[in-house]
């Protein structure tokens, strides 16, 4: 099972590397979204208030990860999907896609963080906590988005469907991540975040577990 997952993750990465336009496109998406936000706010470095900085950052990450993950089940040919269906177990497929998308979302979030810090200034006081929070957020986002993109791909995969199906599912994760990230920016005592981080972990576990259980039914149809 683990071997299968490792091979499948490698395959995803290789495929992405071969068709570079997809990854380049989404990276450019993040940069232009940040830059658009920057120009629309008309704000110089450091003049943005912390809650606004935080909310803007997470919304941009939310939209770019929805766009990045939306393609996970449509990028490959139907015939090739059938081939995977025969050689790999559905559990391995969903886990490998989730792991790969976590990495992808994390890259997006880090790139967004760098560009955001560059144009708006970087107010984050507690950087390790902020990074941990990014990792947890990326895990939650990719677990739910991978499952939703599997559902949306069965329904013709239009962008609207992907968005309306995933936003309500993502909101609990987004809210928790935004609160922790706010505390990390303010550099508050780490202990007060413990409960929120645990909640975030629990939501992630719940979403991943239900995706793991439900995906085989979807894959079979």
């Amino acid at each position, binding site marked *: 099972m683990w071997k299968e997952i490792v091979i499948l993750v490698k395959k995803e990465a290789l495929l992405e590397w071969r068709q570079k336009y997809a990854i380049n496109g989404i990276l450019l998406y993040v940069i232009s979204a940040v830059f658009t936000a920057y120009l629309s706010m008309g704000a110089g470095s450091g003049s943005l208030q912390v809650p606004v900085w935080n909310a803007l950052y997470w919304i941009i990450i939310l939209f770019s990860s929805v766009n990045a993950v939306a393609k996970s089940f449509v990028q490959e040919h139907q015939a090739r999907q059938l081939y995977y269906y025969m050689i790999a177990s559905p559990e391995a497929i969903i886990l490998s896609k989730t792991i790969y998308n976590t990495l992808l979302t994390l890259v997006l979030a880090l790139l967004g963080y760098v560009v955001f810090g560059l144009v708006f200034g970087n107010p984050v006081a507690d950087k390790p906590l902020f990074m941990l929070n990014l990792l947890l957020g990326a895990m939650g986002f990719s677990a739910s988005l991978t499952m939703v993109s599997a559902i949306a791909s069965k329904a013709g995969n239009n962008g609207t*469907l992907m968005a*309306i199906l995933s936003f309500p*599912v993502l909101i609990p994760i987004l809210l928790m991540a935004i609160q922790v990230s706010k505390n990390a920016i303010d550099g508050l005592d780490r202990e007060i975040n413990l409960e929120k981080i645990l909640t975030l972990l629990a939501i992630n576990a719940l979403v991943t577990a239900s995706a793991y259980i439900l995906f085989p039914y979807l894959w079979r*149809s």
Partner: protein
Amino acid sequence: MKAYWWKVLAIALLAYTLTAGLLIDVPRLPILNETIRALFFHVTMWFGMILMLVVAVYYGIKHLQTGDLAHDDMAVEFTNAAILFGVVGITTGMVWAKFTWGDYWTNDPKLNASAIGLLMYFAYLVLRNSLTDVYQRAKISAVYSIFAFAAFIPLIFILPRLTDSLHPGNGGNPGFNAYDMDSNLRKVFYPAIIGWTLLGAWISTIRVRIRRLERKMEDKLINQ
């Protein structure tokens, strides 16, 4: 009598809720005053909604196990009834909030959680309509409804507890909790939950029967 005793029970309980709910003596609490009666008509909607969503998820799981369309009918109609209850719950809540908090909408975790829950189930209906094959539709919407329910539960139970809510019983507001929910209120509150939920189940079963008749007629037309 055997088959419809619960419908009689529903009518009796709701008649009791309406009369007793409007007439009994209620404790006079600051801010709430007489609006405490919303407990029987607004709060019960949420209980009914959650119970019906649980039923819908149960039938969703049954459908995934057996592939039987009859279970899918039950799942979708219970979800529809739950959405109806949710919309009524939000509307009654808004009217109540206007009189006690002075605004139709406040940034209260419970309000936001319920609005998000409704968004989730509206999305479920859109997803259903976007699929044309009946078996595909049944299976994929069952998967989404279970998945959405798994995300909805932490939303309504965990998130409101992390930040304070304006709702009675939260954050030091007078409410129906341990110390001031008196037994008079309880005598109406619990029957009201059962009564409203039975009404919801009644609506759902009627709609399921309509759905089955429609399918039968369609089959007849095709086989002619």
